[in-house]
């Protein structure tokens, strides 16, 4: 349809930028209820990837595969449902509403009469954001990205003015050897999780419009 949505450079954008606005997948440890953000095979103060899966560092319990995939699917579905709630935002008067004018982009305005405000209405949760959210969840279980340390970092790199506390709290970086082994040990398990996301990506209309996106997605599997 609208060819201006094509973004051929999408695939070249690093995950840290591309998924800047994606919401983190948060997992609850079924054993101790510890609730923590999950960012794939990388160092975290909350979890550790072992050869047998994701281990909660609060109680040392290894999350069973079904626990992880169920939480992943539940989170993903909440995102889709939130998208379908269809919240719109006016770029001029700033109202947020779920009502749609018969012209779509026309603002209903605070008067409710659909004239007066010249602003443009847009979905707050765009299909691009949802598509990126799905790709982000997929990347969390992408072991080859983890191997190349190309995942969106859990602990943002600060420029200079980072406090001593934050520096101390940052977990130590994994050695490449450790990382390489964990990648292979978790490959098949993480493919199960990726399969959960893939089922939705297959139904995702945006994937078939946004060619930049689809190539970016495929390039994850090349090399």
């Amino acid at each position, binding site marked *: 349809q609208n060819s201006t949505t094509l973004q051929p450079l999408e695939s070249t954008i690093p995950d840290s930028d591309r998924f800047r606005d994606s919401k983190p997948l948060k997992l609850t440890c079924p054993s101790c209820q510890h609730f923590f953000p999950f960012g794939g095979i990388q160092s975290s103060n909350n979890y550790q990837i072992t050869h047998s899966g994701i281990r909660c560092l609060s109680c040392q319990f290894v999350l069973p595969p079904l626990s992880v995939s169920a939480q992943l699917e539940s989170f993903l579905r909440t995102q889709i449902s939130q998208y379908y709630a269809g919240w719109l935002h006016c770029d001029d008067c700033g109202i947020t509403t779920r009502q749609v004018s018969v012209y779509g982009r026309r603002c209903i305005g605070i008067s409710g009469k659909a004239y007066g405000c010249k602003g443009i209405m847009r979905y707050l949760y765009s*299909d691009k954001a949802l598509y990126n959210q799905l790709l982000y969840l997929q990347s969390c279980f992408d072991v080859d990205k983890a191997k190349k340390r190309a995942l969106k970092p859990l602990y943002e790199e600060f420029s200079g003015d980072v406090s001593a506390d934050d520096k101390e709290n940052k977990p130590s970086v994994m050695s490449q050897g450790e990382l390489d*082994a964990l990648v292979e040990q978790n490959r098949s398990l993480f493919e199960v999780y990726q399969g959960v996301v893939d089922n939705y990506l297959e139904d995702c209309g*945006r994937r078939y419009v946004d060619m930049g996106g689809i190539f970016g997605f495929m390039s994850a599997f090349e090399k």
Partner: protein
Amino acid sequence: MTTTIETQIITRFGPKANETDILKKCGELMNIFGLSAEDLFLKWESYVITTSTVDNELQLSLPSLNKFQEFLQMKLIKSNQKTPSSNAKRPVMRTTPNMNIIPSTPMSSMKKRRLEAPGLRSADTSYTNGGDSSPVAPSPSATPSKQTESGKILETLNAHITPSNSISQAKLKLFANFNPQKYKFRTMNQKLLEVADYLDEQIDATAKVLLNHYKFEASDFGNPNVQSQTEILTVGRIVPDSPLTPYDADLNPNSLFLETSRSGGIGQRVQLNISSIENFSFFPGQIACFKGINSTGEFFKASKSYPIPYLGSPVSSLSDLNTYHQDLAGDNMKVVITSGPYTTQNDLSYDLLSRFVDKMNNEVRPNTLIMFGPFLDVTHPSIQSGNLSFDTDKTPTTLTEVFKFVITPILKRLTCQVILLPSTKDATSKHAAYPQDSFDRKHLGLPKNVKCFPNPATFQLNEVLIGCSNNDIFKDLKDVNGGQKMKQSRFDRVAEHVLEQRRYYPVFPGGLKQKKTKSLIAENDTGVLEHVSGADLHVPYMGLTEFNESLPDVLVIPSELKFFCKIIKNVLIINPGSFVKMNAPGSYCLMNLVPPKVEDLSKADDVDDVYLHNVWKRARVDIIKA
């Protein structure tokens, strides 16, 4: 078990290993590859044997251990390549060093093992609780006293009709009145302009219907937004007077606007004054037709509202009706209807469903069973918190596998014809929008007597036209009403709206469920609204939710509100109630339909030999405790 890793390494590798960097490297390798000191040594030995030459045996050193690590890594990659990913359903839990707490056994025996580890009490309780939700274990909520009530009739419509006790099990003829291909559209790409196109067309299409029905003149229609001296006719959508009105707000007669179509009033909205209309019921999203005047330019004063004419009822030829009669050999047609959830909120036990299946097979023996989702509710607390496990032969690793390994075996036992309709909350449906594509029967391993239909779906069982929609309009439609309408039951008004508007879900914007979460940051905070679920309308395809040419004979729209069965405009309206409600057995619906006899039917047409079905007169409907 107080031996240190170092001692373990030295015990296996010998005193040569007693060097800081070697000990450190060995410990690292054990960690990385998940090996015990013993395992590491065995692997090292075989590595030494395969790489050493006759005159140069590999020595234990840091460089050789680094090479050893590469070797282990390569083996790992190779073993992955040997196993195609599709087979890798179940990750293997291998023995772990210095992690006594992690079960060293495969998943299935994890529960037993965990009970032996007293150090992890909190973990054990929560995890084994989940494990109790096996399909064989009795559900804790289904207490004996409640079980004895099972089968109790809670409500009956047309009690004078005798239910049939026969076990005819005749197969009903099933015709789908929908094109399944049309539901295969891709989701998650809703375009605002396409939404607007649909909303606009809806007004104009209804205007055409009204024009033809009431024999209006096209010139009688005007723009209600502009001031005029004379009365005009207008068709538009009822909307709230502010864009900030929550969808479920209690509106009042003074807070309504009428939205015009692009052609009817360039999409503008005008305040609606309905003080002259005696009996009314209006809701956001409704298409309505008024006669009235905008004499000041400020508001449109309606003097009369014109309802949208009802569609006709379906008819059948005499020869078809005779065939259906013969097929049933004089027996009643028995149709059972259930609606999810099928488990309590406390656990994911399908025990009650399993017992229900036995009851259907052995006692009730319906011709057809219509089952609405959710079967596996993606908003179920156990799924959201990841605290779930099942005692099955194969351990599910995904929710789709939970359906396949836990629910499918139960449904497979059903001997009658079964129709499944999904819910947008069903974890197994990847098409998480309404209108919704059907379940993938083959993928879920369901047998051929199970038909998977989309949501909504209109179909015919013999002569009976059944309309089914799984989106809770009874909960989501909130109207402003007055006069006689106020005295009616709300369910009656909603059902009338659905029939009049000719679509299964006429509310716009659709329902929304949010929960308030306290923000930890701001004091004095009213809380943040977090999205839970919703009607998930994919508006550009809402055409699939419109009635075709006629009203249905039976309209089934499950609601989480109380079950009911009623007759509105000669349509049998059924809400079977939730199969499990408030953590206890809920209800289901049994319809006994007396076979069509010509003397009981009304002739619809003098020319052709066609007859109205009069299902509302011939059907006994019981709501029964699950």
